[in-house]
């Protein structure tokens, strides 16, 4: 299985991702791109800023890719996450999977982005009209310290 994982500070080249997973043995490929939305929970979002524990993020993507290869017969997988400022409308993350048949390509791509969002050590700070905050499941960033 071909695979490639990356954290990047520049725009994500989705065309290169699709080219990477393209293969004569593949009947199809599914690509998911996450893009910065102009609205979140009622706030007007101006931009997002991502921070990564880069070395672990890439290793964790590789573990997800290996799990995908174990669960589904796929031809190639690639995951890329951008860090730094990502303006509204631009791509922050991309997951591409090719397989002999589309069932596998869809299931593996969906598993890839779902698992990436749950386990890969990357954090998003939202800059919105009137403030900024770190996005987290429990808004733990807002919890008071002990001191």
């Amino acid at each position, binding site marked *: 299985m071909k695979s490639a994982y990356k954290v990047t500070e520049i725009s994500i080249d989705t065309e290169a991702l699709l080219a990477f997973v393209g293969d004569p043995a593949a009947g199809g490929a599914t690509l998911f791109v*996450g893009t910065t939305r102009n609205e979140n929970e009622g706030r007007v979002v101006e931009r997002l800023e*991502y*921070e*990564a*524990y880069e*070395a*672990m*993020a890439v*290793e*964790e993507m590789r573990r997800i890719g290996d799990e995908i290869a174990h669960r589904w017969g796929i031809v190639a997988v690639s995951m890329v*996450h951008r860090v730094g400022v990502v303006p509204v409308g631009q791509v*922050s*993350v991309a997951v591409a999977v090719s397989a002999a048949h589309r069932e596998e390509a869809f299931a593996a791509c969906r598993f890839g*982005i779902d698992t*990436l*969002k*749950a*386990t*890969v*050590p*990357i*954090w*998003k*700070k939202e800059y919105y009209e009137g403030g900024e905050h*770190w*996005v*987290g*499941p*429990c808004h*733990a*960033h807002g*919890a*008071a*310290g*002990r*001191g």
Partner: protein
Amino acid sequence: MTVRVLFFAYLRERCGVREAAIDLPEGATVSDLWSRLLSRFDKLPAEPPRFAVNRLYVDKAHPLHDNDELALIPPVSGG
């Protein structure tokens, strides 16, 4: 032994530090290190984050070794 501790995202901002070198007695676990960190960084929340040692998630009972890299992993929000 010495363990290198990494801070990210809101923990990095609250504690005002990206990394710290912490000395620990042989046989110390992640849990022991967390207690040490709580006494040193008063902006740390009482509730522990997830931990990764040498870029793998571990639980609090995980034994530490000299030169280990321990990361405090607040709730991730990539995507």
